[in-house]
Every structure is written in C-alpha cells, then in structure tokens.
C-alpha cells in the first residue's frame, strides 16, 4: 500500500525541535565544549581532550559526594515509597469531605516553593525558637543540625520526606482508586486475607504508578539542590553537600568551568544510566512467564 509522503509534515514537528534545541541540546553541547577545552574567553580556547575528565574522576571529594548522593537517594526511596503507599492505603475513598480534605492536606507541601521549604525547616529545626528543634532539646536530646553531621542528615531527610511523600501517596492513591470493586469482592469470596489483597491485587495494580513514583523520586532526589542549600548550606563540613551543590561550588564558586563541565556530563550520564537501568529492570520483572 502506498503511504502518502509529504516532507512538509516536518514543519509540524519544527516548533518542538526548536524548543528542545534551545532549551536542552544547545546548552548540553556547550557543556560538552567546555568539558574538552580550556576556555579563557571568546576565541581563546585550547583543546585539552580528556584532561578535565581525568581530574574529576581522581577527585576524592567528588567520589565522597557521589557516595553521599547515592546513600541519600536510596534512603529517600526506602522511606518515601513504603510510607506513601501506606498513607494511600489509609486514605478515605469515595466522594465526600473527608476525601477532599485529605487530598488538599496532602497536596499542600507540594505547592510550597523549594527554597521556602528549606526556610521553613531551617526555622522549624532551630534549637532555640524552632518548634521541632526546641521540642527535641526539651526531650533531652542533644540535637543540633548545624553542628552535628548525623543531625543535619536526618533533618535534610525528614524535610525531603515531608516535602515529597505526598507525591508518592497521591500517585499510589490514584492507582488504588482505579481498581474495580469486583476485585475486592472476588478476593473476599476467595477468602483472601488483608495481606493477600495487598500482595496480589493492590500492589500489582499500583505497579505502573509506583514505577513512575520511584523514577521521579530517584531523579529529583539525585539532583536535589535548593532545600539543603537553604537549610544547611551543605554543612556541617561537607556532610550534606550533594552532587549538584558540589558542582555549583566548583563552577560558580571556584570558576573551574572545565572541570565542572566534565563533571556535569558525568552527572548527566549517571542519572540517565540509573533511570534507564531501573526502568528496563522494573518493566521486565514481573511480566515474564517464567516462574
């Protein structure tokens, strides 16, 4: 069969191509340029090959930051996904003021700008006037997020959980609401326990939305910048300096553009690789016939 072929159709794609080119491809290629050359100014660029990359990979502080980052993302996923699912399971269903109220309450943290979230927690966690920090100190705990690395870590984690668990909960809730009532009725008739209902009906039906939740939370937490920057400024020491902050410090603070560019490319590839591997793994697992 002859398919109509008309090159003018490309015109329809053009606006998208233009937008993506200006907002993503051009900046990315600029970064590639910087990562393989030593650029002092317009017309003053020298080819350096892989030197910046070698320098970046040898940098111990970077390796530390990467390790810290991985630990952080894993912790975020390990807490937020189960917690979000648990919240979704407890949420009221059906129409009514209870459902609406719960949804609004859950959506609130998601509506707050990220730097404001950082400021809220900075004040909340203060030992002298902060509701959370002061309460912990009253309980006799030696809590001080500006001085103690572990406290700083826990505070940043708590902030992320507070800020983003809602997203997971809302996604999981949407997944749960899409399950037809017949499934629950059939499970009841089959004599399934509460756990079986979760394991064999709810969890499989939430699979799709949970994949998206994990991907979103992984990518976002892996690139986290604003909140720890406002809350701890990366400290104490480098305890909460994650990759993006490390990168900014290198590029803007020390004006080490070549190294920072090489680092950006590596950073980008890591996120891409993780997401890709994770996505292919999770979409393959649990769909095969093998058992």
């Amino acid at each position, binding site marked *: 069969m002859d398919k109509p072929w008309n090159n003018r159709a490309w015109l329809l794609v053009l606006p998208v191509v233009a937008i993506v080119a200006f907002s993503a491809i051009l900046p990315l290629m600029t970064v590639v340029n910087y990562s393989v050359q030593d650029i002092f100014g317009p017309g003053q660029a020298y080819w350096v090959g892989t030197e910046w990359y070698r320098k970046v990979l040898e940098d111990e502080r970077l390796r530390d930051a990467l390790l810290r980052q991985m630990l952080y993302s894993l912790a975020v996923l390990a807490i937020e996904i189960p917690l979000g699912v648990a919240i979704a399971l407890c949420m009221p269903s059906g129409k009514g003021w209870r459902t609406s109220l719960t949804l609004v309450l859950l959506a609130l943290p998601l509506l707050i700008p990220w730097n404001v979230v950082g400021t809220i927690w900075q004040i909340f966690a203060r030992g002298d006037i902060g509701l959370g920090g002061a309460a912990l100190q009253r309980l006799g705990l030696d809590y001080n997020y500006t001085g103690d690395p572990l406290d700083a870590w826990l505070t940043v984690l708590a902030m992320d959980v507070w800020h983003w668990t809602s997203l997971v909960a809302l996604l999981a809730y949407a997944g749960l609401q899409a399950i*037809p009532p*017949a*499934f629950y*009725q*059939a499970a*009841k*008739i*089959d*004599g*399934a*326990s509460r756990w*079986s209902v979760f394991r*064999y*009906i709810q969890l*499989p*039906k939430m699979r799709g939305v949970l994949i998206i939740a994990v991907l979103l939370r992984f990518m976002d937490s892996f690139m986290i910048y604003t909140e720890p920057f406002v809350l701890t400024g990366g400290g104490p020491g480098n305890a909460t300096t994650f990759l993006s902050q490390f990168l900014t410090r290198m590029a803007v603070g020390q004006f080490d553009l070549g190294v920072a560019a090489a680092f950006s490319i590596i950073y980008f590839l890591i996120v891409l690789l993780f997401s890709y591997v994770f996505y292919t793994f999770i979409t393959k697992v*649990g*769909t*095969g*016939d093998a*058992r």
Partner: protein
Amino acid sequence: MATIELRDIAHSYRPDPRGPSDYALRRLSRSWEDGTACALLGPSGCGKTTLLNIISGLITPSEGRILFGGRDVTGLSPERRNIAQVFQFPVIYDTMTVYDNLAFPLRNRGMARPDLDRRVRRVAELLDLTGDLKRRAQRLTPDAKQKISLGRGLVREDVAAILFDEPLTVIDPHMKWQLRRKLREIHKEVRLSLIYVTHDQVEALTFADQVAVMVDGAIVQVGTPQELFEEPAHTFVGYFIGSPGMNLLPCELAEGGARVDGIPIPLPAGPRPDAGPHAGPGARYEIGIRPEFLEIDHLGRAAGNGGAAPGLVPVDVTDVAFLGTHRIVTARLGRHTVKVKLDEGRPVPGDPGLRFPPGRTKLYRDGVLVN
C-alpha cells in the same frame, strides 16, 4: 449443596426508605431448588445485580432473611457462605500463574497440597485450561480469564451455588457461544446451582432452565423459557422477551371478546374478565399477541363470496423487513401498529387481513395477565 431461599427480602440503598420508589429491590420471596440453572433477566437498573449481591453476601438486605439449605446466612460475609461469583469483568490475580489463580481459594482455606493439586487439575481439565496452567494469567484472552474466574469457584468443594453477573459482557461474540455452551456442559457435569444475571434475553433463554424476569425492583414472572414466551404473565415480559416483542394493543371489553378501536377481536371463552376483584371502572385493558402467532391471510379469498371473512381483521401493510429465514411485516390496525412474523417463502397478500388465534391472544388488565 443447598436450596437457596429468600424470605421477604427487600433492599434500599437509602438509609431511610419511604415509598416503594426508594427501594432498589422490592419485597420478594423466592426459592431455588438445588442444582438448577436460573437466570435473572431484566433491563439495566431493574435490581437484578442487587439481588445477586444479596445472595452472594456482598450486600446485606435492608429487610428479610436469606437461607441456604435452611440455615440463615443473612448476616454472613461472602467468604463464609458457600457461594462463588463471576463478575462482569474477569477478575484474575495478574501476578500469579493460572495454576496459582485456581489454587488461591483453596490455599486461603488451608487445603493440603495433594488434595489441592488434584482438584486444581480436575477443574483445569473441565475448563480446557490444562495447557495454560504454568502461564501467567495476565497474558490470557478475556474468555480464558473469565474461565479462570469461574474455575476459582469450581475448585472449592464447599460451593453450593455459582453466581454470574453479566459474565459475557467483555467476551468476543464468537467466543460467547462457546463459553455459554461450556457453562451448560459444566452445569450438567457438576450439578451446581447456577444463578446468572443478564439483560440479554438470548443468553438467559439459552442458558437457564428457569428464568426470572425483573423490572423496577420486582420479579414479574418466573418460568421456563417456553412459558415466558407462550404465557407472558406481564406485558413487560411480553415485549422484553422475543424479537420483536409482543404486540400490545389497548382495548375495550365487549361481549365475547375485545374491541381495538372498535374492531372486534375474539378472546378465549371463559368468565368475563371484568368481573374479577381487581376489575374496576378505571382498569386499563390490553390484548397481547406475539408476532409469531398472528396469521396473515387474503381478506377476499377467505371471505369466499364477497362478505367479511370470519375472524379476519383488515389491516394496511406499511413495511416488510427481510431477515433471512423470516420476514417482519409491519401493519396498521386502526391507530395501532402491529408486527407479524412471516416465514420466508410465504407471500404478503395484496388484501391483507390478520387472524388472532384465540388460544394465543392474551388479555392484560393493568399490565397483568387475566386468567
């Protein structure tokens, strides 16, 4: 195995029902003998699914009691009644294999492995699923999934009845026939009570030994498919069952018969229908006759020597539709339209007249069959 008995069951989805219109299911009592295949037939919203869910225990009725084999199960949850249910959309456990799906109800009830294995394999054989046992249930076609839903009911040895809630809705037309035949086969083999809810008269009439026709939250007639066809107890049954449905003509009573727009129609001999206790001056009468039973003939030839033919009513034919093995003739009788089913090969006369065979012509008072 047990007789299912409903005693004065009624259900309303409102907390404080006032009038009869607040009830999704009006007060009714019925019982089903053990081992029958019964269909609940009715249009959407007639209360048939509500009734089914009351039997399965998914809904607790607002009023009345339900008994399985004499045991009151009104307050029991579905898993504690010995029933299984197949839903409109196939319910399977996606992550499990077909085998595990079938074994699931037995595992939940703690059955020992050798027994469980034997029962699962037997049911799989019954449903032609043996080759698919190791496959993941998610990958199967809708009809195979629906068989698995049914299989989860069949494996249990404690099941007295299997309930079906429009189970063929999402099945391809050519698979519907197969699945329905399979159901009948299985019914013969296991002799379980089957209760089948549908709005499709073909499904109901071919599946069931006994069909209960429902409308507006009430059962209007229970009978074999033949009884429903030949003796509709209610005008609703008349026009809901059959294709096209029964002709219903408003009429007045007259000596020895009825009059439709002044045209006399003979009725079977018997006591005068307007003498009964329900007969009042405001009663509305209709005669009903199925298109299959109306006879069409030449007015003139039957008359012989020019006079009006005995028992023939003159009509105007307005339309003839060809439907393969037969034709549907649409005719005007006074101000009313009548449909007549005519076997293929028989011509439509040029001077058509209709004969209403007295044994086939029914009289209804306010929608209910008289006599």
